[in-house]
């Protein structure tokens, strides 16, 4: 099974474009902005301004292309490496920065943005998208739920339970596996003996689509079809977007210990941003001046988000007691009083 590809490595169209050039320019700008966030967050971690950060460079098309196929009120359940997809669905950069700074307000997007805070544990979150979509159907809406996960997560038992429930109940769920080649240090080949992850969909009675994850237009097209299918009440789809994690697993990881430079160079030639730029150039819809504007606007957006996040005062001591239940229990109040009386732990 060859992955669906609409833009070849040189940015030439291999079939009808699923979106207008104007929309493609908008999504190109989104990818540039997402990469600016990724670079900024990595740099801030090095400066000690963010906690451990999971880079997504190389996966911009897989995230931006898929999220672009959603309606603003659709649900999204994603992971720590999916900031670009979450931002596309309305999750603000400032919240993403706050989350990485270690502030629970980073888990709280504005009302109307139906994006859960990123899952940190691997695998357990996929079934949440099944429940969310299922609830929407029971309530009579046509909202769908999309969930993002990596190749490693498909080894978790919860992947099976999520896919099985979605298959049995035909829930309006879109499963997007970003097969980025690596689960920390474990290569995709050692993760599963199956030839593809997409083929696993067969076992659950749903379509499995293999797509070039570094091809913005192919990812968009595949996700648009899966979303439409879910919205029509025809059930779930598994999309395997083949991409590559250009960075390490996180800022705490050293990919040089397990990945050779040749692999990295090969994937650099498939860069998702470069590919769309080539297509826009060929179509006469690109100029250096325009890209400079896009880059400058992205940098300004990201800097503004950093300033807003860093400008927000931390919670006062004992605020965690307010977040356990709707109202703190008497014992939680006693515990808070003890904290305020005796003080906190190590600085």
């Amino acid at each position, binding site marked *: 099974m060859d992955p669906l590809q609409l833009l070849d490595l040189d940015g030439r169209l291999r079939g009808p474009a699923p979106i207008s050039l104007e929309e493609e320019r908008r999504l190109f700008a989104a990818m540039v902005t997402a990469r600016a966030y990724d670079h900024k967050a990595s740099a801030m971690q090095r400066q000690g301004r963010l906690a451990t950060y999971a880079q997504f460079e190389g996966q911009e098309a897989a995230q931006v292309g898929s999220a672009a196929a959603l309606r603003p009120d659709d*649900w999204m*359940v994603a992971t720590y490496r999916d900031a670009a997809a979450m931002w596309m669905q309305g999750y603000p950069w400032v919240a993403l920065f706050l989350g990485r700074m270690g502030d*629970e*307000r980073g*888990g*709280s*997007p504005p009302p109307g943005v139906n994006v*859960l*805070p990123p*899952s940190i*544990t691997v695998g*357990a*979150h996929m*079934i*949440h*998208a*099944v*429940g*969310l*979509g*299922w*609830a*929407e159907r*029971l*309530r009579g809406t046509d909202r769908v*739920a999309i969930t993002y996960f990596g190749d490693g997560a498909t080894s978790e*038992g*919860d992947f099976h*339970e*999520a896919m*099985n*429930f979605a298959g*049995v109940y035909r829930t309006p769920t879109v499963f997007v596996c970003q097969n980025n080649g690596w689960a920390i240090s474990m290569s995709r080949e050692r993760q599963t003996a199956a030839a593809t992850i997409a083929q696993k969909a067969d076992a659950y009675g749903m379509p499995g689509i293999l797509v070039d994850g570094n091809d913005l237009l192919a990812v968009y097209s595949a996700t648009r079809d899966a979303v439409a299918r879910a919205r029509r009440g025809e059930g779930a789809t598994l999309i395997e977007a083949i991409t590559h994690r250009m960075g390490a697993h996180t800022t705490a990881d050293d990919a040089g210990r397990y990945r050779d430079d040749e692999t990295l160079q090969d994937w650099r030639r498939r860069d998702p941003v470069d590919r769309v730029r080539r297509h826009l150039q060929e179509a006469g819809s690109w100029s250096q001046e325009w890209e400079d504007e896009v880059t400058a606007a992205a940098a300004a957006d990201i800097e503004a988000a950093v300033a807003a996040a860093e400008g927000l005062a931390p919670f006062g001591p004992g605020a*965690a007691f307010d*977040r*356990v*239940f*709707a109202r703190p*229990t*008497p*014992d*939680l109040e006693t515990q808070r009083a003890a904290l305020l009386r005796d003080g906190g732990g190590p600085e």
Partner: protein
Amino acid sequence: MNLAHALNDALAVALDGDDRVVLLGEDIGLAGGVFRVTDGLLERFGSGRVIDTPVAESGIVGAAFGMAVAGLRPVAEIQFLGFSYPAYDQIVSHVGRIRNRSNHRFTAPMVIRIPYGGGIGAAEHHSESSEAMYAHTPGIKVVAPATPAAAKGLLLAAIEDPDPVIFLEPIRAYRATKEEVPAGRYTIPIGVAAVVRAGTDVTLVAYGAMLRDALRAAGVLEADGISAEVIDLRTLSPLDAATIVTSAEKTGRVVAISEGHRTAGIAAEVAAVVQESALYSLLAPVQRVTGWDTVVPLKRTERDHIPSVDRIAAAARRTLED
């Protein structure tokens, strides 16, 4: 009405009164649940409200979590407490944390009903009393009713609660006793214990199926001229410390009873509460009567594990020795 029927009544009242309530679990529809607690509900409310699921505890709880976040009020059933461990990660890592990790933006108002405890000679893994594991988990309330009328009111309160509740149903109390259960909708507050028998010499603190044995022990003690007060905890987390402490201050003697394992268990928590707040009223050390720190024995020796009326009465007498 027995406890199982009272719970069935509560679920029917909830399904009838609130379109957001859905039930899901293994064999809860066509079969009516392994203990028949959901009997007849599929026929009455349909397969969109009473959902038979594949055998997948993590999936059941995870799907219910998604439903709750989306605005439904799911009531999931796990067949036995010993089968809840595949769902433990969902409960601890997601259900109990979403309010915190989203700073109240998303919540999971859901109930996980789980039959628990031994005494019916069931197979291995079917007699667990590991409720302390869940009481130890932030963001989760743990309720364990003992009697039919309280069970109905507590379950309706759990379904209404804005936060997730693990609702533990004492297996051997399902059909052990009957009492008058008020018709229709009523709630009994979560986090509030009940003094079910007044006394002056010693306080017996129990919950779930152990309440009946605590009351029997109180009867035995009464024959010896010992007046025992009996508290039904009803909620294990948050624990109603005030009711425990008030009684301890009155009697000066406390026996904490739990079928669960002894170490870091509910009885240990009761003892800690008493020594923190009522130490100078105590006339004797707090006694714990619990299941042991062993794997729950199978049918032939199960009775060695579950606290007996004799063990409870003996512990109470020890608090009265000079």
